[in-house]
């Protein structure tokens, strides 16, 4: 397509899009109006029914816990799929030497790796009290491992996260989530129903099964991300 034709196409579609946007925006409610009835109800009942202070966590790990089960297994399948596509029988080869030449990157990586893991664990552990949870904290913990690599220590990165251990952790996390649901069945309740004592609102001991599912998903997400990083890094580190 010639340059003029492309510009013409852009001009026409741009004008149409702008007109549609203006039309849509003029029909919006006033700024700050919230029309989600479900949101108001949850805001009202989540604290009383589930003894958690982060309503989002009560939705993710309780009211819609079954949806999260599906998401856990999407991530699980994605990580396993990447591993199956990219992994070759490489573990017998010698691990490559570090290549970072910048002292600044080395220092920043080393200084940030530990604190990042701690922040991630904090975000996981307090997911049902303050904003955060298993997913967000899990990726942050995995980021700590990547920083170890960024500090120019591929070998320590690999030593800190052995394949067999990471895979075990991923399976355990995903399996534990499903198992909590099955445990509810044995207790005579519905699948994934909150059967554990709810504890004191605002303390770490609150929310019943929410902290358990939160921890399981934290473990699963951390392991899945580390596994993904492994496979991508191997592609870069081992030269063909």
């Amino acid at each position, binding site marked *: 397509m010639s340059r003029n034709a492309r510009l013409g196409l852009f001009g026409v579609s741009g004008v149409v899009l702008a007109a549609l946007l203006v039309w849509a925006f003029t029909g919006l409610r006033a*700024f700050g109006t919230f029309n989600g009835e479900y949101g108001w109800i949850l805001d009202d009942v989540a604290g009383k029914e589930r003894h958690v202070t982060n309503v989002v966590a009560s939705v993710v790990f309780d009211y819609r816990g079954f949806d999260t089960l599906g998401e856990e297994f999407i991530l699980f399948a994605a990580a396993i799929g990447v591993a199956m596509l990219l992994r070759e029988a490489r573990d017998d080869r010698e691990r490559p030497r570090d290549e970072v030449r910048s002292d600044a990157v080395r220092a920043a990586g080393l200084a940030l790796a530990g604190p990042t893991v701690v922040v991630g664990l904090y975000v996981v552990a307090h997911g049902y009290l303050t904003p*955060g*949870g298993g*997913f967000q904290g899990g990726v942050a913990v995995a980021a700590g491992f990547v920083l170890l690599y960024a500090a120019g220590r591929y070998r320590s990165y690999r030593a800190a996260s052995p394949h067999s251990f990471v895979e075990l952790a991923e399976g355990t996390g995903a399996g534990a989530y499903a198992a909590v649901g099955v445990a509810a069945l044995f207790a005579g309740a519905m699948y994934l129903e909150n059967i554990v004592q709810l504890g004191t609102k605002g303390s770490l001991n609150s929310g019943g099964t929410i902290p358990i599912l939160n921890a399981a998903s934290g473990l699963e997400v951390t392991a899945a991300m580390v596994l993904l990083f492994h496979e*991508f890094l191997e592609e870069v580190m081992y*030269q063909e």
Partner: protein
Amino acid sequence: MIPLQVVAIALTALGGLAVVTSRDPLRQTIVSGLYGLALIVLFVVFQAPDVALSALVASTVAFPFVVLSALAKLRRSRPK
């Protein structure tokens, strides 16, 4: 709308434009990280901390990592 929210929206819009207009993939990755930061500030300003945390880990850890490792791999397989 408070001024802080207006600033956050404007920064996000500018960031998106900057990502689209940068041509070098490596530079684009860095710019998209900054754009992600603007988006995170937007979420915080609009009182959605849970979304902000998710966006934080996705746009500053997972996404740049995948793009950067792909770029590094390309650079190795096609030396200048």
